[in-house]
């Protein structure tokens, strides 16, 4: 694992500071920067007035500003002044989980009525994935996790730190900039029966490429035949189609087919609660009794990591989801965010076509969700950074949420500049 090399320095037993030569941390090398958060850091340090941040997947309005949703403001005004600073009561906690899980399985689902799921709140999507990875390792210590190629960079870190080895399976086709469906099916077929897979139910990160409903059906059927375990990381529900229910359709197809699944949910993007770290992890069970067992194990893992998640975000989410008016407002606000992104996708593509770009930019509008996997090479990405102060990750992933009517022409021109010679 991590090497512990022993460079013993000579040691004095004197307690005076000047004689101390014992150096605990000399062996600590500087860590590589996170490929996503380091983009934001560099962006913040840039003083150029034309800079654009297309790095992290955080929604921006048409002025390029972060947004606090109206439903969130209302929820926050309600809870200010409440007696809720102690650990989450189990009532509040169950409420959040129940409401979250309704978003996944549909509010009339039998799963919910019969309590056939183990659900715990988690520290947003990352925390939910990590809890599951630790749980997977604990009960299936020899298992691996199959991840899409590519996937969110932090997925690799999460399962690695949980000591679960990873494999990749075909997903993105660089030529079509779409789904490599037949290779995907082959990989699913060829994986040993009962393998664990990490799937993005909608708005795939980083590619924006989602299977069609038909394709999902085929994948689900194959999973059933192979007895694979699908784990869904749903970080962008609402951002793919603008419709929350539709975005969960893939999960529902798997469940209807009788697959037993797990699902991580994040409220960072669709409720704009990034910094509050609110999410949910649920695992489907045979019955309510088993659900109790699994939940207790998940809670134990969490207890040794951070005990319990922060209550403020939990109160906001459960407040919004359990009030029909606030929930309706939220649904509208999600649709508006998704619409704005969709409209800028169209504008960007049109602008590039109007510039007579030699390249095909259809993928900008074919891909869905927050990201566009542009196909730009690392060299082109670097030029965009140095010459135009446009920031994105080296794999060419652009967060479309950072594009505005104010900067889209500048962006199109810049992309054209670095790609016009092919």
């Amino acid at each position, binding site marked *: 694992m*991590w090497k512990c090399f022993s460079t013993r320095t000579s040691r004095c037993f004197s307690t005076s*500071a000047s004689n*101390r030569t014992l150096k*605990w*941390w000399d062996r600590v090398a500087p*860590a590589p920067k996170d490929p996503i958060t380091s983009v934001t850091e560099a962006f913040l340090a840039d003083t150029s007035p034309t800079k654009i941040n297309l790095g992290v997947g955080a929604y921006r309005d048409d002025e390029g500003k972060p947004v606090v949703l109206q439903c969130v403001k209302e929820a926050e005004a309600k809870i200010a002044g409440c007696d809720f600073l*102690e*650990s989450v009561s189990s009532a509040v906690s169950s409420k959040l989980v129940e409401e979250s899980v309704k978003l996944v399985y549909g509010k009339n689902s039998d799963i919910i009525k019969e309590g056939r799921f183990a659900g715990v709140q988690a520290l947003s999507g*990352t925390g939910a994935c990590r809890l599951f990875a630790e749980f997977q390792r604990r009960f299936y210590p020899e298992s691996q996790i199959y991840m899409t190629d590519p996937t969110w960079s932090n997925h690799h870190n999460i399962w690695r730190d949980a000591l679960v080895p990873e494999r990749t399976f075909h997903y993105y086709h660089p030529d079509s900039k779409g789904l490599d469906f037949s290779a995907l099916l082959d990989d699913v077929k060829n994986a040993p029966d009962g393998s664990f897979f990490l799937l993005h139910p909608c708005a795939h990160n980083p590619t924006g490429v989602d299977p069609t409903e038909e394709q999902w059906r085929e994948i689900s059927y194959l999973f059933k035949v192979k007895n694979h375990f699908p784990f869904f990381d749903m970080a962008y529900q609402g951002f793919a189609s603008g419709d929350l229910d539709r975005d969960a359709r893939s999960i529902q197809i798997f469940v209807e087919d009788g697959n037993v699944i797990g699902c991580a949910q994040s409220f960072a993007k669709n409720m704009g609660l990034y910094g509050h770290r609110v999410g949910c992890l649920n695992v489907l069970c045979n019955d309510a009794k088993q659900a109790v*067992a699994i939940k207790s194990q998940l809670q134990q893992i969490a207890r040794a990591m951070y005990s319990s998640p922060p209550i403020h975000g939990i109160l906001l989410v459960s407040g919004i989801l359990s009030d029909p008016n606030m929930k309706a407002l939220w649904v509208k606000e999600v649709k508006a965010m998704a619409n704005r992104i969709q409209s800028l996708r169209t504008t960007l593509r049109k602008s590039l076509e109007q510039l007579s770009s030699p390249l095909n930019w259809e993928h900008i509008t074919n891909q869905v969700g927050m990201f566009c996997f542009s196909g730009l090479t690392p060299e082109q990405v670097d030029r965009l950074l140095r010459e135009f102060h446009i920031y994105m990750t080296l794999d060419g992933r652009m967060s479309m949420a950072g594009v505005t009517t104010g900067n889209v022409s500048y962006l199109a021109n810049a992309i054209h500049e670095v790609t016009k010679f092919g």
Partner: protein
Amino acid sequence: MDSSSVFANIVRAPEDAILGVTVAYNKDSSPDKLNLGVGAYRTEEGKPLVLKVVRRAEQMLVNDNSRVKEYLPIVGLADFNKLSAKLIFGADSPAIQENRVTTVQCLSGTGSLRVGAEFLARHYHQLTIYIPNPTWGNHTKIFGLAGLSVKAYRYYDPATRGLDFQGLLEDLGAAPSGSIVLLHACAHNPTGVDPTIEQWEQIRQLMRSKGLLPFFDSAYQGFASGNLDADAGSVRMFVADGGECLAAQSYAKNMGLYGERVGALSIVCKTADVASRVESQLKLVIRPMYSNPPIHGASIVATILKDRDMYNEWTVELKAMADRIISMRQQLFDSLSARGTPGDWSHIIKQIGMFTFTGLNTKQVAFMTKEYHIYMTSDGRISMAGLSSRTVPHLTEAIHAAVTRAG
């Protein structure tokens, strides 16, 4: 459901010993029930307390329309980190002034300990941590799951109900050089037994001479004596000698922010360069765990710590909480003395912080729960914060009965 769950053979995990007490308490329908389990402060009326200064800070945040909910950096809120370091190490600490301290925001004490332990498991050369016997129940699990091997050093002496100082010195003296040692900065949990300043100095000298690495858990700064600086004395003593150490801070109790999960991990290093490299590696621990810490609680803390009036208000409210606990100790002691309960109960007023290690055994504890509906952890630890003048008589009766009837 067509197919069986792949997790069908999973058994139910045992209840957490401490949190399980509250679960049992909640199920009890007796009007006399008393929860002396988890260390959460209660008022004289038995209610949880949200500090006034916290309410004010929270209202300020809500009213500030310029505030957004973006991700914090992986290491957390910068202001919060700087202010937390000053709080524990002292504003004039040379280690801070020389930029030798890296501080990262974590999820309360638990999160800070876990991140620190994960970092040590990856980068440190001696993967054994010595923890006092006894210690908070979650310590063993946190360090174990982080990949450290856990050993104990003698700490509590049941005969004196005080510190087994000789045993402590012997055990730390025998520890392999470079071992990590967990130290409760003040108000030891569960015993309430703290070393004196002189004893701390001896511990420091021994540890430095053996190259043992101190890892402080500071969950009760301000609760021990009522004075924040005094309660950080042990930590500052170690930092003052120029050596390195880790310190986990929690704001759960002293700011009453339990549910918001606010804390910080600081690592004091020899040089600024080392501190910077260490920080970069801490980020690699945090990112795959939960990406970045929660914004709300840390914003409240930073708001309070950076405003002189609010800070002063906080110290007053904190002292009031500490004083109420000290007064409960006195009341319980006086009450047991008046009742003539057999035994020496002076440890109740000698022990420090939120907890009293009563010395009651598991049979007696079970008896008190069954007959008197009094809930505490099975090691006989009671949270003084859960007591009030009104409930002291009931507890006295229960202890008296347990001692005289339930061997």
